[in-house]
């Protein structure tokens, strides 16, 4: 087990599949579909040991692989995971399989290229989550851009070229500026230690001067905030989502957006703690604007997919707000909510894809009364709507509760805004449900829509299971986050424990440290 390069296997399984597909003739469309499905399923299966073998007790990065890569600049092939990245990798491999499975009948043109791009994208995403070398991380981060560009640009709808280039350039501008931030860290590290390295764990031990921290934070902010996307950098998202093919939207919502939040938690917070605290008001303000603005705009949409896209803006802003509460509960909630957003928004995009494949329109006004002809579909849509708006017993509730709890400790005013976002979220989602599922079928084209096929149903099963699992018994997930969250909080907010103890006046600090995921939460759910 220790010698098995598990992370490399997970990382390169999709790439191997892509290379295999290169050599298959484009004429064997069904063969290509089978190969892509088997490869992504295998990719998911090989990632499962991460869940079981991950040692919850150990605060260290695990499954570490470290090899020399470019010795002259100190770059390494350095992989490793903690609880946070384990969960995101599992989300990636699962959503990758679901995305591929959902494309079976939706994609009929250039099938081979489509699956090759999806598989390359998969490797890029996993690579970003497992890299502990900053240069390697950046490499995978950029690798994701190109396949996504093609997925939107070739297989998208209406304004696909415009949306694809918009996505590409927005993300690229952010990431090249981020690269400068990485370089600034790199040379500072050298000036202090006389060693050239991109080792993230080394960076996390640095104490940078405050001035430099602020600049680097802003550079990282641009890269990550565009990806999240935070208001006011969100404008690429509705276009990209609307024009992407279903699988593209699913991957974009479920995994790509998490790159931004992952970047904040993995890099910005622990490497730049003082700057992070300095910028909390700005981050909180932008998040709150995002929550309310995203929700209000979502309410005004007539396009089903655009509505879900704007709901993403709102939900991801909530994730950011929880993170910048900078306490264990808030950060735990932020991470859990990232998973939830992946599950529920991924499912919502799949659901739009199902009807789009049947009707080729996304206008909400074209639908209505679908629950009569598609009862199974309507039932799944209902569960996912409830999950998205945070109904108790489903996953969204846990995430939002933790975030609100963390935010409340930081500022009651923020909590009030966050709560308003949840209310608005319920409004637009339920209204969407009402307009599409209930009422009479007024459009004759909708009268004979077939319900879900077995394959389509299969794409939803794992998501339903996860929604209920996290909703009812989140402890296994929270347990895996303990060490990550306490490590991040110890770096970014080292006084938190003491302040907390002083405030409460009853709990000794030692107890706090032991239950670092937040005593109220971890204690309550276990």
């Amino acid at each position, binding site marked *: 087990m220790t010698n098995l390069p598990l992370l490399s296997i997970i990382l390169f399984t999709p790439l191997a599949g892509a290379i295999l597909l290169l050599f298959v003739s484009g004429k064997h469309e069904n063969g290509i579909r089978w190969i892509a499905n088997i490869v992504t399923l295998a990719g998911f299966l090989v990632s499962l040991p991460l869940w079981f073998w991950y040692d919850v007790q150990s605060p260290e990065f695990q499954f570490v692989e470290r090899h020399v890569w470019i010795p002259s*600049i100190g770059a390494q092939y350095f992989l490793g995971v903690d609880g946070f990245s384990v969960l995101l990798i599992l989300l990636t491999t699962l959503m990758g399989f679901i995305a591929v499975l959902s494309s079976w009948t939706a994609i009929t043109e250039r099938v081979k290229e489509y699956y090759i791009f999806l598989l390359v994208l998969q490797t890029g995403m996993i690579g970003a989550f497992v890299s502990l070398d900053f240069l390697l991380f950046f490499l995978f981060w950029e690798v994701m851009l190109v396949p996504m560009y093609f997925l939107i640009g070739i297989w998208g709808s209406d304004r696909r070229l415009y949306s694809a280039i918009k996505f590409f350039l927005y993300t690229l501008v952010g990431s090249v500026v981020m690269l400068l931030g990485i370089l600034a860290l790199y040379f500072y590290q050298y000036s202090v230690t006389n060693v050239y390295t991109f080792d993230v764990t080394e960076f996390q031990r640095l104490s940078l001067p405050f001035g430099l921290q602020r600049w680097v934070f802003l550079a990282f902010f641009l890269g990550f905030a565009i990806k999240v996307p935070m208001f006011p950098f969100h404008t690429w998202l509705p276009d990209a989502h609307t024009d992407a093919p279903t699988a593209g939207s699913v991957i974009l919502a479920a995994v790509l957006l998490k790159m931004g939040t992952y970047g904040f938690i993995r890099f910005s917070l622990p490497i730049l703690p003082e700057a992070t605290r300095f910028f909390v008001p700005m981050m909180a303000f932008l998040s709150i604007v995002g929550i309310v603005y995203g929700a209000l705009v979502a309410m005004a949409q007539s396009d089903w997919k655009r509505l879900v896209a704007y709901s993403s803006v709102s939900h991801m802003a909530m994730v950011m707000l929880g993170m910048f509460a900078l306490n264990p509960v808030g950060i735990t909630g932020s991470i859990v909510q990232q998973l939830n957003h992946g599950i529920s928004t991924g499912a919502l995009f799949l659901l739009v894809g199902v009807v789009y494949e049947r009707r080729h329109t996304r206008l909400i006004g074209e639908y209505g009364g679908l629950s009569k002809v598609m009862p199974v579909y309507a039932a799944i849509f209902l569960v996912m709507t409830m999950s998205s708006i945070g109904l108790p017993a489903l996953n969204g509730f846990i995430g939002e509760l933790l975030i609100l709890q963390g935010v409340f400790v930081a500022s009651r005013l923020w909590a009030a805004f966050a709560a308003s976002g949840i209310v608005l979220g319920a409004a637009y989602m339920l209204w969407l449900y009402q307009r599409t599922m209930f009422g009479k079928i007024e459009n004759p084209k909708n009268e004979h829509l077939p319900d879900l096929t077995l394959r389509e149903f299969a794409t939803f099963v794992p998501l339903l299971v996860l929604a209920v699992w996290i909703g009812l018994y989140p402890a296994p997930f929270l347990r895996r986050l303990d060490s990550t969250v306490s490590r991040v909080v110890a770096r970014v907010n080292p006084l938190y424990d003491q302040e907390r103890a002083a405030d409460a006046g009853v709990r000794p600090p030692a107890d706090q440290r032991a239950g670092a995921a937040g005593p109220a939460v971890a204690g309550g759910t276990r």
Partner: protein
Amino acid sequence: MPAGLSAGDFFYILPEIVLAAGALVLLVVDVLVSRARQDVLAAVTLIVLGATAVALLPVADAHVSIARGLVAVDRFALFFKVLFLVAAALTVLMSVRYLRVEGASAGEYYFLILCATLGMMFMAGGTDLITLFIGLETMAVSFYILAGFIKPNRRSNEAAIKYFLLGAFSLGILLYGMSLLYGLSGSTNLATIATALAGQERDPRLVLAVVLVVAGLGFKIAAVPFHMWAPDVYEGAPTPVTAFLSVGSKAASFAMALRILVESLPAMRLQGAEGPVIGWSLMLYVLAILTMSWGNLAAVTQSNLKRMLAYSSIAHAGYVLIGVIAGSTRGVAAALIYLMIYAFMQLGAFSVIVMLRREDSVGDELKDLNGLYFRRPFAALAMLFFMLSLGGIPPTAGFMGKFWLFGAAIESGYVWLAVIGVLNSAISLYYYVRVVVFMWLKNEPSGSDPVVNPAMATAVAIALAATLLLGVYPGPLFEFAEASARTLGVAELVQVVR
């Protein structure tokens, strides 16, 4: 012997001798073979280039000054010689079919390619203003003829005339600067100039000399505002010549600029109370910003592929200038690395364009790429990687090159230059990706199917392999470039700076 070469010197310039002799042999072979069998000439040219490369091996570790200080044989020269030989070889490979389609005579063409390469080698190795200038002339004259090589084509003629007139003009400016340097220092030897000029940094005539040298070399590397000739010449010249011009000539001019600025004018780098009124790093700073920004913005609006790549090549000269400005060993190494990487990706991109030249299609408009993926999937795939590399997207070599350049800029404190650089590379992606869009997203082919012959396929394959390999495993290139940069006397330069 009072002057000239000693016996030992011949050993060190054996590569140049092999190349010159080979070029003459080529002329003889040209007379012997019939016009129908011109491929033989390409083979001979490749053999000459290969023999030159082999002749480089024994002197690879040398670090000597020969012929009474006229020429240096060091790592720095070696790096560029390798670059020139590779570039020339790839150019020859992509020319074989092009010349047949154009009906041009191959013998003189390959001869001129070899002559240009010879000139470049002296531009990299020269340590005397005279040697450098003769090298530059040898290269430039060869290119004047090559640019107009397709005689029936009026645009090719126009390109040649424009290049000749503006080239002669720029050489005049450069020569004027050099003569001022000679007048002020009493020597044409770079090292002697450096010592003779010590203490004269505030002399305005010296500043004028530096301005003229920078302007003259600015023409050669096509830096804005000295770039006006480049788009027309690049568009009109035969495509393989454009490729060689944009890679070889540019790299050689950079080698020469580094030699002159770093070896003979280190004290003129930064302005200050002791130093000159205006240092060359500030001049280059302004040039670099103008060059990157204008090159990229102009490229965005082009519909002709060659013209677009001409503007993009202007922008790339701006990136390389960042390394020169940084002035550290890392900066010079970054410039070297980038020039090498740029050679592969630029020649690769041009070889795909050459592939599009058929009897019934000129093939240098963006729309000629329409649906290339469906006709030549591997050519399109290669072009995709060349474009991504030119734009600096990992895992291609272009990213590693840019990474190294911007890193050098940040290390030397030129943060804003790096910021402008990265924003420019984001802009550039817009037009590089557009090329890809044409290949993949549209499907209305024009003209007959592109034909791939083995020579062409080899060129694309070599360029692609290098672009990808250097993208994921650039370590050896980095080390080679650093070792080369160190021989340039940059260590002393850094002491002057700090």
